[in-house]
């Protein structure tokens, strides 16, 4: 029997199926349980998700508890506030060897959430010291690095003590959802994977979020696989593709086409798992039924895309060259990956376009070219001088930014 989340995904992939997974969280226990059961029963190879609410994410447990007490709607499941008895009851008869459940949270200080998920008998979650700090939190990056080091060690110690293999997924391949060039997404995913490994994790997944160009996305996932082979020896890893996380198409047909292309990307690149999005995504938090429909659509699209022999890892691409350069430039800064990440952001060797966090330099800018590829408009201090054109365009105005943010929505709604 496959062991844990990573084992399930690896075994499912070996059997020729893409694991599909929603991002689903409800404040109400009955709704959350119904959502997990519906995911489990969906006609696809699924893994379950508990997404925590955003009060819990930022550690505002008082507001989460107050919302629960007053019956107000929450945008996710308040894992810490519900407590261990409720959480175990939620999962009883739901989670099993054929249906692992991952907790998704977005927290720069995940320790309380990790304790709660371990108490609930779970051992799979996601995030990272960079990807859940810079875009989503106000705490200094140095604090997030320390919190995440502690979180990783807690997950490893308690998970392995109970004879399990805890699983942690990097969110680094998704930072800010859109307009971060793929080379840096891949680099961040690998660097967070190395951070997890340094803190004891032996079972990791590496994320990459679909961007604006299908060809470039294939290059990116193949580069991610190649770099994982090179840098992450001694751990079990798989790749998880995220369906587009930016401004989503509004038409059902556009949304379906975008999700289908994400499933095809996963299959063509040998990725083992896919996080789906629903047709409702551009409007509001999706229902259980909409999530199930998205899971089943993605599952069908993945099957239709087979047989596809997994392509070999590809090192001959712009994305690979940029990602490798950023990884190496970062790792050279300090033998400890966490310290190296801090220095890299301080020096601008890593710099997330448009991210407003004070520890992000904010000099790098991106643009979408005529073919839809996501490129650097300004590399700032990124060490990419001979790899990317570094010309500075005039400052981007609101209309231009909006145009770029809506590129994918326009393209896919235009199909309708």
């Amino acid at each position: 029997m496959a062991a844990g989340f990573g084992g399930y995904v690896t075994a499912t992939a070996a059997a020729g199926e893409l694991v599909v997974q929603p991002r689903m969280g409800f404040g109400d226990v009955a709704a959350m349980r119904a959502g997990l059961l519906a995911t489990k029963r969906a006609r696809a190879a699924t893994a379950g998700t508990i997404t925590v609410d955003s009060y819990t994410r930022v550690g505002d447990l008082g507001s989460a508890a107050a919302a629960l007490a007053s019956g107000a709607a929450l945008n996710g499941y308040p894992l810490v506030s519900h407590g261990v008895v409720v959480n175990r009851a939620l999962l009883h008869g739901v989670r099993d060897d054929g249906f692992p459940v991952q907790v998704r949270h977005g927290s720069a200080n995940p320790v309380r959430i990790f304790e709660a998920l371990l108490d609930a008998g779970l051992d799979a979650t996601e995030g990272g010291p960079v990807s859940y700090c810079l875009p989503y939190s106000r705490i200094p990056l140095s604090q997030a690095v320390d919190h995440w080091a502690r979180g990783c060690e807690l997950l490893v110690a308690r998970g392995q003590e109970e004879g399990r293999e805890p699983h942690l997924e990097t969110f680094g391949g998704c930072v800010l959802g859109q307009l971060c060039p793929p080379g840096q997404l891949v680099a961040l995913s690998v660097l967070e994977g190395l951070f997890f490994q340094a803190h004891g994790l032996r079972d990791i997944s590496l994320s990459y979020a679909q961007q604006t160009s299908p060809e470039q996305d294939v290059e990116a996932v193949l580069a991610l696989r190649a770099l994982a082979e090179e840098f992450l020896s001694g751990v079990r890893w798989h790749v998880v593709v995220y369906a587009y996380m930016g401004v989503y198409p509004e038409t059902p047909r556009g949304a379906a086409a975008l999700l289908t292309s994400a499933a095809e990307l996963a299959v063509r690149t040998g990725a083992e798992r896919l996080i789906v999005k629903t047709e409702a995504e551009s409007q509001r938090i999706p229902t259980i039924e909409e999530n199930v429909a998205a899971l089943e659509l993605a599952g069908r699209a993945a099957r239709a895309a087979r047989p596809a022999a997994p392509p070999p890892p590809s090192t001959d691409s712009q994305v690979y060259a940029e990602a490798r350069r950023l990884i190496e430039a970062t790792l050279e800064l300090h033998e400890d990956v966490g310290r190296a990440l801090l220095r890299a952001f301080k020096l601008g060797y890593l710099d997330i376009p448009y991210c407003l966090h004070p520890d992000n330099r904010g000099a790098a800018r991106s643009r979408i070219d005529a073919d839809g590829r996501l490129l650097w408009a300004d590399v700032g201090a990124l060490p990419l001088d001979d790899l990317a054109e570094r010309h500075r365009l005039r400052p981007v105005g609101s209309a231009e930014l909006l145009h770029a943010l809506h590129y994918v929505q326009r393209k896919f709604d235009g199909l309708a």
Partner: protein
Amino acid sequence: MTRMFPDQNPARIEGRRPRALVSGVASDSHTWNLVYLQLVCEEEGLDVVNLGPCVPDELLVAECVDQRPDLVVLSTVNGHGYREGLRVVPKLRARPELAGVPIVMGGRLGVTGRREKELADQLEAAGCDRVFDSGGPEDIDEFRTLAAAVTWKADDAAARTPVQSG
């Protein structure tokens, strides 16, 4: 339609641009709305202090007191907006220094994706001058008009902290 950055308001003298403070609310991690609104405000002739996402109430109040903005722009799209606005706007209004500053809030404020009139009315009663929650492009047009009309309050000048670049 690309707009550049000329000062739209002839009453605005060089070096005396009114200041907008753009901010997310405590539980909302979304950034693009804030980046976009910063550019819109700049295009309408305002200097912008952008606090970014996930701003705790106390920080928002402290920054508003320090910065003395001529306009406070709260934007949130995670579905907790009405609740958070009803919590934080009274905290802003409780500070005498901020009694007269226009406060506006917009975005996707509830989890249903629809305007919730009763909550919007409560938010306005709590001291929010304008709630932009129709979800349509007319919200931005109206916000631009509002931003372009904001004027600089000379009497607050001495209290201001300089705008930091970047």
